[in-house]
């Protein structure tokens, strides 16, 4: 133990003697560790943003839709569409579900007093706003009566307002959706980009009954039913319950598979978490290539150093150093170099994250585990790439080494 301590001291002296070279050697590791920390943190930051947005959807969310399959490049609906009958059965019987809204959507041309825009119109009921916990910046949501009477009212998002009204206050004014006049009753609070990158403010919400009557001309099936479980803990029960009710409603026999799908918000989080997780790993892997390159730099310099110091090694062996002493000395030199690079790289990574936040507003919390990965990898690189030169040094024949010119 004491011997190890002495050897560490010797290694530090050697590094100190070649300060500028040591610093250059370490540069590769600094950049590598910094890159690993920054990319992993960026991935984590993106993941956190997406997850936050999904939780923003309302924690108890369930989405019920018909099973789709890719066939020949198009979506093919398998089985019966979800319709009013399904909706009514769930509404009447479900105990774990508190709120429920149909959803039909249609792309349409909307025109306002100051402009027009192609956008997506969602037909929903009055409970939809609660289910997705959307809030208003002005006006009001449409009411149950509007849904029942298929009233020509709508709530619009901020992007839509900008395009159609510019500076005008939209509340109480009319817009035309595929030439049918609707009165704007509410303006949604800005939400920004959604989990999948879509603009959540580029939206028009109207009673689904109105959309079906006026835009489709008939009451066809729904694209989706959105539901809210009673509370966070009952999401799984709500899903099971809805599933059973739908199987009954669709007359699916026991051995047959569901012809519908139910996705909960938790599942959505898992799916997007997986996607961003893969992205993070990918980015981290690319960044770690630079670490390996840094490691090769260390190996290169250590090999040069061993050749340069052949006589020193010979002298040390002659005056009683064991092979293991020489091996540890050079190994410690390599590890100290890479660890120093790890520390400086961590600082660089954290500063880099802060700089990116200041410049782009994209908040990157430095993930603690990214520091551990960067650091651990740096140490590993030091040992792995330091071992070969260290072994070469230790295996020198002292007689030849002493005469080396």
């Amino acid at each position: 133990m004491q011997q190890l301590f002495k050897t560490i001291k010797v290694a530090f002296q050697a590094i100190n003697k070649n300060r500028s070279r040591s610093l250059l050697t370490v540069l590769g590791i600094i950049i590598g560790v910094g890159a690993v920390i920054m990319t992993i943190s960026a991935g984590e930051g993106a993941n956190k943003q997406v997850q936050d947005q999904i939780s923003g959807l309302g924690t108890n969310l369930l989405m019920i839709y018909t099973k789709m399959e890719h066939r020949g490049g198009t979506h093919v609906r398998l089985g019966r569409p979800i319709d009013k009958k399904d909706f009514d059965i769930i509404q009447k019987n479900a105990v774990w579900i508190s709120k429920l809204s149909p959803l039909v959507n249609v792309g349409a041309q909307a025109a306002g007093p100051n402009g027009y825009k192609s956008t997506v119109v969602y037909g929903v009921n009055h409970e939809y706003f609660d289910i997705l916990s959307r809030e208003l910046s002005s006006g009001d949501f449409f009411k149950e009566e509007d849904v029942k009477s298929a009233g020509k009212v709508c709530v619009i998002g901020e992007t839509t307002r900008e395009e159609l009204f510019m500076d005008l206050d939209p509340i109480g004014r009319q817009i035309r959706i595929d030439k049918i006049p609707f009165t704007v009753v509410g303006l949604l609070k800005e939400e920004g980009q959604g989990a999948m990158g879509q603009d959540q403010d580029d939206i028009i919400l109207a009673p689904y009954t109105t959309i079906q009557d006026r835009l489709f001309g008939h009451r066809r099936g729904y694209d989706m039913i959105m539901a809210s479980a009673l509370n966070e803990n009952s999401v799984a029960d709500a899903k099971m319950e809805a599933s059973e009710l739908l199987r009954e409603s669709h007359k699916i026999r026991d051995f047959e598979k569901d012809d519908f799908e139910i996705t909960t918000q938790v599942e959505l989080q898992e799916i997007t978490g997986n996607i961003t997780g893969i992205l993070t790993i990918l980015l981290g892997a690319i960044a770690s290539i630079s670490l390996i390159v840094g490691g090769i730099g260390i190996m290169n310099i250590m090999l040069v150093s061993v050749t340069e110091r052949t006589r020193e090694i010979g002298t040390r062996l002659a005056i009683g150093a064991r092979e293991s002493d020489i091996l540890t000395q050079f190994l410690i030199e390599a590890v100290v170099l890479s660890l120093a690079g790890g520390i400086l790289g961590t600082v660089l990574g954290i500063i880099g994250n802060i700089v990116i936040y200041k410049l782009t507003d994209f908040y990157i919390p430095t993930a603690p585990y990214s520091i551990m990965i960067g650091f651990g990898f740096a140490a590993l690189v030091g040992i792995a790439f330091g071992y070969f030169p260290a072994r070469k040094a230790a295996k020198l024949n002292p007689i030849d080494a002493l005469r080396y010119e």
Partner: protein
Amino acid sequence: MAAKKVIETKNLSKVFKNGEIEVHALTDVNIFIEEGEFVAIMGASGSGKSTLLNILGCLDKPTEGEYYLDGVFVNDLNKNQLAAIRNQKIGFIFQSYNLLSRTTALENVALPLIYNRTGKFSNAEEHAKKALEKVGLENRIYHKTNQLSGGEQQRVAIARALVNDPAIILSDEATGNLDSKASIDVADLFVKLNDQGKTILMITHEPDIGQFAKRMIYMRDGRVLTDEFIKNRNTKESAMRELELTAK
């Protein structure tokens, strides 16, 4: 009363094989050196003196024959034991000093103590300072090697060979890189250290330096040719006088 034998070899032989060719570097070398002796080994290059020194310095093993160093049968030792015996029983001095560059004299001298595992030299710095005093470099303790003259560097190396209190000091052409004046100083230092009881074995090809020793072993073609005590030992004064004469 017989003095303790520091070095004893019995029929020491060394054969280097280079493909088909066998080179007999040493053949049946029998030498012994007692405690307190000062022996010079001389011989032309290729006479085997360096090979002999490598074996005596436990850096190499003989092909045949036995070697006892300070009572230890060296033939049987493994690598780590050889490292330990070099560390504890031998003080090496090399022709080209082999000091650590850009390192202080003190650190250089303390170097062997880093590898000493006996715990005998726990205060390495103190021992190193004492060794530097013995070679007259007490004013150069914190000088770095590149700030010292050749003669001073070799004295640092001698201090390094003294610091572990070895059974024998082995010097391989210690004066080979020095001018005549510095060579005489180093040889004179050897005499003084020997007077203090140090056992010294030096290899040299300079007869006037060899004449400082008490005994001379002359080698040729891997064999000991002559091994006799020197009658008219050189001293610093006589060597300096000689030097002045040849200069004129």
